[in-house]
């Protein structure tokens, strides 16, 4: 128990790091490489340097020292030394404000290229010391600032602008703080072994290729779909609330579920060849079509030069298709 007081005394969490690696400037500038799962900011990961304000403060203190010497003002010395001591103490406080935090990320919802990805980052504070004004950011991205209460946690949705389609490794997160006096900035890098998916940018409203729509059954099909009301049946647990026939329930006649006939029997093949332009333009057009087909409750399939996604409908089909478009040409498709 006592040995746990001082973080240095703790056995090093990753003994795989050689001293040379520990001291290499690359680690200082680029971090340690991606890791999976939650990451604890130990003193090995937290760096500290004075801020620009801290340097200005140092210049003022130096001037004060010169003035005190010149005018032989003993209280001037006292004040100068108090400020020096204050900044030393502030340095420790700033360092501590980051030390011991656990950082983890959650899965980010895929977005379209050009939008902003929101990566959920959780900061957990297992210590008895509240943390204030911890800022997080991806490189060249907007900052998010949060406080982490003692023994609690904070969650921020960290913005990351999606610039290229595909599946990308999550960039390094920089955690920084200048609390409590703003004279020093402590920072740490958190790099996670996680990937984010970015769909192609949808082309601006391109009409669906109507000629590739053909109707298999004019009167609509059997089975269950979402378009044509077909009758009521007894409610089964798990039925969508939007399909519950609330009127009968309101009349006190029991719980019924509305049944719909098969989807409008329009089937749609979205084909690489029907889209025009270069690769990215075609992908954009196809993305737009997938979204429109999904909104129009079509059964649709996707034909790409390297793969074919069979006819289906619903959110799962949509995500499948968008992912295929996002990863098109990425080699293994993973």
């Amino acid at each position, binding site marked *: 128990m006592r040995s746990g007081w001082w*973080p240095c005394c703790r056995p090093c969490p990753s003994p795989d790091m050689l001293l040379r690696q520990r001291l290499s400037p690359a680690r200082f500038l680029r971090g340690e490489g991606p890791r999976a799962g939650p990451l604890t900011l130990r003193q090995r990961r937290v760096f500290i340097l004075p801020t620009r304000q801290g340097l200005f403060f140092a210049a003022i203190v130096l001037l004060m020292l010169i003035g005190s010497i010149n005018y*032989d003002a003993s*209280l001037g010395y006292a004040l100068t030394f*108090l400020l020096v001591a*204050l900044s030393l103490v502030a340095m420790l406080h700033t360092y501590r404000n980051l030390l011991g935090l656990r950082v983890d990320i959650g899965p980010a919802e895929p977005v379209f290229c050009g939008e902003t990805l929101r990566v959920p980052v959780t900061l957990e*504070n297992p210590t008895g010391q509240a943390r204030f*004004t911890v800022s997080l950011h991806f490189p060249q991205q907007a900052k998010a600032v949060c406080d982490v209460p003692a023994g609690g946690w904070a969650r921020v949705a960290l913005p990351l602008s999606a610039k290229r389609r595909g599946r990308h490794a999550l960039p390094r997160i920089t955690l920084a703080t200048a609390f409590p006096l703003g*004279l020093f900035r402590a920072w740490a890098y958190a790099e996670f072994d996680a990937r984010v998916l970015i769909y192609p940018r949808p082309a601006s409203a391109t009409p669906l290729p109507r000629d590739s729509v053909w109707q298999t059954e004019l009167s609509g099909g059997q089975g269950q779909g979402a378009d044509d009301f077909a009758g009521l049946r007894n409610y089964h647990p798990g039925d969508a609330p939007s399909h519950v026939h609330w009127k009968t329930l309101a009349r006190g006649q029991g719980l019924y579920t509305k049944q719909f006939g098969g989807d409008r029997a329009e089937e749609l093949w979205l084909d690489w060849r029907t889209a025009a332009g270069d690769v990215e333009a075609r992908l954009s057009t196809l993305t737009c079509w997938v979204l429109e087909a999904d909104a129009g409750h079509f059964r649709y399939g996707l034909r790409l030069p390297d793969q074919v996604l069979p006819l289906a409908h619903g959110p799962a089909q949509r995500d499948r298709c968008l992912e295929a478009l996002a990863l098109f040409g990425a080699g293994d498709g993973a």
Partner: protein
Amino acid sequence: MERLRQALAWRWRQVNRAQLWLLAGLALALLPHVGRLPWLLILPAALLLGWRLGVELKLVRLPPRPLRWLLVGLAVAATWVSYQTLLGREAGVALLVTMLCLKLMEMDRPRDVAIVIGLSYFVVITVFLFDQSLLMGAYMLLVVALLTTALTAFSRPEASVPQRANLRLATTLLAQAAPLALLLFVLFPRIPGPLWHLPSDATSVGTGLSETMSPGNISRLSDNDAVAFRVRFAGDTPPRDRLYWRGLALTHFDGRTWHNPNETRRDAGAAHSFDFTAIGEPLRYTLTLEPHQRRWLFALDMPASAPPRSTVSADVEIIARDSVKTLRQYTLLSYLDYRLGAGRAPRQFTYLRLPPAIAPRARILARQLRAESRDDADYVQRVLDYIRQQPFYYTREPPLLLDDPVDEFLFDSRRGFCEHYASAFTVLMRAAGLPARVMTGYLGGEDNPLGDYFIVRQSDAHAWSEVWLRKRGWVRIDPTAVIPPERVESREDLERIAPAYAALTREAPDWAKRLWRKAGYGWDRVNNAWNQWVVGYDQGKQLAFLKGLGLKGFDWQRMLGLLFVGLGLVVAIIALQLFRRRPPPGNAVGEAYARFCRKLARRGLARKPAEGARDYAARIIPRRPELATQIRHITRLYQRLRYAPSTPRDGLRHLQQAVRRFRP
């Protein structure tokens, strides 16, 4: 009315509290400069502070940029008008203050805020260039706390913490910084003296002795109790009526005013050789002079040498190289009995000159008395007898002497204080052909019974004469001292000018007066200690302190080494405290119960591992039946807080209280 109140409340919530901390700190830092800086600069500074406050309260807008530049120009111009310079201590401070207040108009980015707070700390240090008293130090500590609070408030603007928490945090930081600062203060090598010579300020207002003396012009002697200097004697303290603290010699008289046009004393380094013979044992003492903004230093009559960075003038005045702007301490040797300038007659021109038209009646008296006396010494005695026998009175409120102050005083009013007597006596000496000059300085002082030192106050200021007598040289004559006690108007004055007589007739003061006096001495002792150990802490004290610790022969390199080792140690201790893992709150219930278990464990009733709270209680109650109620109460509370679905209100507090009171 209600709506107004709500609008104000809403507005108050919008206010950036960090800015308020900053403005409060800055305003308090500037306050001591009020009265020291010209109103031409103070008023605009106050206006700008108020303007910023108005901006923060959303009452007014910031001035447009061209106006700001105009204001900057005006500030520089105002400083120039007030001081005719932009350099030096006072002009520099004035410029800093106005520029800082102007910067308040342009404080949007964090960088500007950092500049303003940094410069505000600098304002604090400028106050110390003028005043380093204990009270000022304490006051400025408050200002530093406010400014630090502003820094913390700016560094967590989004945090939803109450402003009290910012103040507390700043106080904590300062408290943790205090030991480090103390270490630096004690061990940082002190470099003596100015690094470069700064232009002396022409406008500084001095306190204490003035450079001239015009007896007829003052109708009331002020009763200023401020301390002029404090003295610690190495050996025995001489009797008070022998403590003449020599200050300035005034050699020229124009009929109304005494002054000293001697230019040689202005240039430092002009060495004078003296025909000085010491008689008896020297007195060694250390004098701590309060800053009085003038160049002269005081020494017990007659000093054998001059302190460092000062010279002795032809009239044996000690003139420092720079005016005394901060507390100055020096150790001197003085001889109470001496012979000065006995070998050679002084220059007639300087010490015999009187304006031809003044004091005709005094000249007649001088001639008459001189004719009656055997020699010069006899003449001096006859003049003193004249003052003793004629109805001369000592009063602090003499009548104004308008036409011929000397004659009017000697023959008409016959009421005055030391300046009148010294002036008239010196005129009588010169009129009879005896070289004479007026000396000003202090007389006596009081012993602080609570400390081992003497206090000399401004109210102890005194003037006397020095007469040159053949074979005896310059002899100090104090004509005020010959006035019989019954002709001294107030008891306080009698104590001052005739302490030996006053001691005979002293009545016991009542207890309230005694207590008041004792408190005054106590306070003065605290101030003296402050002056000696804080304000007067210099290289010598530093070395003496280290010597006291048994570290002899320290040079500054070793001192720095010791300083860094000490700093590293203290920082390590603070870091240990800070980085110690503290359990998060929320497990306070378990903590309290663990404390209860520890208390019992100390009595040999340790809880076994994995033993339930109830089993533990059941096991120990038979062994300590007298504690049964308490143990049951604590166990029940703990179990309920730990396991019950809803916890009772204040349950935790009750548990903690019960555990605290539990003494097995």
